[in-house]
């Protein structure tokens, strides 16, 4: 325990980054040669962990980090080469390091022997590796000289002054140890004209009495050894100084050839680090919230002023516009603080894949793409579990065994691909495999077996594939060790939905499956189009809108099974009557002369037309969760508070597109609302 206790939190925060850095590179290690910059990073990570751990006396952590550091040091300096199997081991050693850090953090002693195996292997690597450099030269101390009186001869060389060491400070330090008398020997001092200002001409003869021991004296001169002539002699206790005392020379420490500094210079631009500060997420969130309120307040002000201001108030209008623009910039700036690249998340997966491929006996290559894509931090955090589950699912169920792959004429090694990109203001994350794909027949039969659909239901291929997201599709009986934890794709879907996102699957039997997650970039704001229908107002996400058309009533065709379609440039577009979907009443609301169809694109890339009465204009809205105090509603993605302070519903395009067509005359009873949601929920993906 010491004054540094207060820095523990910083240390553990830092450890997280360092461990991540270690792991990032560890995942890329291979037998033989490796990227020197990466190895340097790994070495430094372990080194920093060790140094910090030492300060807090986490002895087990220090010991383990020490050995790992030594191994990494040899590898990076080329004195040791990684053999076959070593890269995997280094990664495991990283895990052990992580466990030890976690134990230190929790304050609970790590399991006894946790690190023993890895430690032994590290030590074996060090013993068997390139010849150990000569054991660090121990300072030859003058026997076991105990406390007493010493005579010290000290003659600094020029080099000592060049390192900014001051004889005077050394004398001060000696004086602390005992009673010091010093005599300067100026005999070597040249004439003033010949004097070199930084040469050492003076030497000292000192006597130190009552010093605790020679070791303490040596410590004082620790930094100047080799840069001075230095001798210590014990002063005889008795006055008989007849015998020449054996002068003990504390020669220069055995220094291996010092490398010229220029060689270690690392001027490459490889690892340019941006300066950053650590801010608690909560503070950022408060800021985001405040700016959100500001946006609403600003919109409210604009709303109420727009009625008063006319053409005579050009200046005021300009000022208002300026304010609007700046508010928006402020909001973007604040949101950007929360944005982080997906890299940190993606880079957890190489190890998961590697571990799992070993466990499953399947050779798998993981391809990552789009790691630089930036997403709101909250979303990144919430994505970890679903993505892990999906990748495990791909490897466990998607990819065939090596034998089956070869038999199917595929390369033995399977490929799992994880990619991310921005599209239309959303982020799309895809997890795909080149495995066996979904067999629609099997999926359908299983769904029937589990009572999720009727045996005589007629479903399209997409609808069948979507069945795998239904609660109760994967049963407890087949939860393997790998897919683990007993979660099914329904939980993945629910987690993604909670983030305002959507998960879909596309699959070709024999060729593989692709799971696509479509997520909002941020959970806070949305660009929306305000529409009105039967006196109600709704927000349509602008990112989904393709165009708006005014369909000719004669071109609209009713379908026998209900619903209507219209042609649009050769394509047949299904129309969704919002008035019907939202179960609105036209009582006292005259039908508009011509309705508008807002053409929107679903995540499937399918286009549908939302039939509305009027477009009321674009607006940026602050998204508020409906689920915070209520529950999810079919066809509704969330709520927004508009400029007038009213709550408006944000439409869920895909939810609407998959809602069953209702008979407009039948108002649903209380009871079956929930049921219908459950029943169709599975197909909304």
């Amino acid at each position: 325990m010491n004054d540094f206790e207060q820095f523990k939190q910083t240390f553990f925060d830092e450890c997280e980054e360092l461990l991540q850095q270690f792991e990032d590179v560890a995942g890329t290690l291979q037998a033989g040669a490796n990227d020197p910059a990466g190895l340097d990073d790994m070495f430094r990570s372990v080194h920093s962990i060790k140094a910090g751990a030492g300060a807090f006396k986490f002895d087990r952590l220090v010991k383990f980090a020490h050995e790992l550091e030594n191994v990494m040091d040899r590898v990076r300096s080329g004195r040791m080469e990684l053999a076959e199997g070593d890269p995997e081991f280094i990664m495991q050693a990283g895990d052990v390091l992580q466990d030890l850090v976690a134990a230190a953090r929790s304050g609970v002693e790590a399991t006894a022997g946790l690190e023993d195996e890895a430690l032994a292997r590290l030590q074996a690597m060090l013993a068997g590796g390139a010849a150990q450099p000569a054991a660090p030269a121990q300072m030859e101390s003058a026997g076991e000289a105990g406390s007493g009186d010493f005579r010290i001869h000290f003659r600094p060389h020029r080099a000592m002054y060049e390192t900014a060491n001051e004889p005077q400070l050394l004398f001060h330090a000696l004086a602390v140890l005992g009673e010091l008398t010093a005599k300067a020997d100026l005999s070597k001092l040249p004439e003033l004209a010949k004097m070199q200002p930084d040469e050492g001409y003076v030497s000292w003869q000192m006597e130190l009495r009552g010093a605790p021991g020679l070791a303490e004296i040596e410590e004082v001169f620790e930094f100047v050894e080799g840069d001075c002539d230095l001798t210590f002699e014990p002063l005889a206790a008795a006055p008989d100084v007849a015998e020449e005392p054996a002068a003990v020379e504390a020669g220069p420490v055995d220094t291996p050839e010092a490398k010229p500094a220029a060689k270690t210079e690392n001027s490459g631009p490889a690892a340019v680090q941006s300066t950053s500060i650590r801010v608690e997420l909560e503070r950022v969130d408060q800021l985001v919230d405040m700016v959100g309120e500001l946006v609403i307040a600003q919109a409210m002000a604009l709303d109420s002023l727009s009625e008063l201001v006319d053409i005579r108030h050009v200046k005021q209008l300009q000022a208002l516009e300026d304010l609007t623009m700046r508010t928006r910039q402020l909001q973007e700036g604040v949101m950007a603080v929360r944005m982080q690249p997906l890299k940190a998340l993606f880079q957890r997966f190489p190890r998961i894949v590697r571990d799992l491929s070993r466990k499953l006996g399947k050779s798998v290559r993981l391809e990552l793409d789009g790691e630089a894509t930036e997403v709101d931090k909250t979303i990144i955090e919430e994505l970890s579990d679903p993505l892990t589950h999906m990748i495990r699912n791909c490897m466990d169920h998607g990819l065939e065994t090596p034998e089956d792959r070869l038999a199917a004429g595929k390369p033995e090694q399977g490929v799992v691909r994880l990619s991310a990109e921005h599209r239309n203001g959303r982020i799309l994350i895809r997890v795909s495999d080149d495995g066996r794909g979904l067999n629609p027949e099997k999926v359908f039969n299983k769904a029937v077996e589990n009572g999720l659909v009727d045996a005589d239901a007629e479903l399209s291929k997409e609808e069948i594939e979507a069945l795998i997201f239904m609660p109760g599709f994967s049963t407890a009986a087949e939860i393997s060790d790998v897919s683990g934890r007993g979660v099914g794709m329904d939980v993945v879907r629910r987690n993604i939905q909670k983030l305002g996102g959507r998960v879909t699957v596309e699959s070709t039997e024999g060729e593989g499956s692709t799971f696509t997650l479509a997520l909002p970039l941020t959970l806070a704001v949305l660009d929306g189009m305000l529409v009105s229908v039967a006196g109600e107002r709704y927000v349509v996400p602008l990112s989904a809108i393709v165009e708006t058309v005014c369909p000719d009533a004669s071109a609209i065709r009713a379908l026998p099974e209900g619903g209507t379609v219209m042609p649009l440039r050769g394509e047949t577009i299904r129309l969704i009557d919002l008035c019907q979907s939202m179960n609105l009443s036209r009582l006292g609301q005259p039908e508009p002369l011509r309705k508008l169809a807002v053409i929107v694109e679903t995540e499937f890339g399918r286009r549908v037309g939302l039939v509305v009465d009027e477009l009321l204009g674009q607006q940026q809205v602050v998204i508020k969760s409906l689920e915070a105090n209520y529950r999810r509603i079919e066809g509704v993605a969330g709520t927004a508070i508009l400029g007038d302070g009213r709550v408006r519903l944000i439409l869920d395009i895909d939810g609407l597109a998959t809602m069953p067509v209702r008979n407009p005359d039948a108002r649903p009873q209380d009871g079956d609302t929930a049921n219908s949601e459950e029943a169709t929920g599975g197909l909304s993906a």
Partner: protein
Amino acid sequence: MSKRVLAVDDSKTMRDMVSFTLKREGFDVVEAEDGVAAIEKSADGAYDLVISDVNMPRMDGITLVGKLRQDPKFRATPILILTTEADQEKKAAGKAAGATGWIVKPFDPDQLIGVVKRVCR
């Protein structure tokens, strides 16, 4: 006027510790997260002491010491390197580059102050 120290380390934990200890002793501490940042900070005036880690990205501590020593402002400035016990080689290299001395990690506040007093007036 209090003495100015430049504390250079890529580990925030270490910077915090050095900074905390020295500030308590009345030093004025300027922090830099690696050699390059230290060189930038060194441009803005003289320091009474520099304490630098060895292993850092962009520019390591040994290189930093060498560069600082070439700067007339730092010619007589004590420079300590932070190193671990095993690093005899580092100590030697540091010294060759012009380091005044070293502080062995891990250190406690007393050890740090003890070493600082040996090199700094």
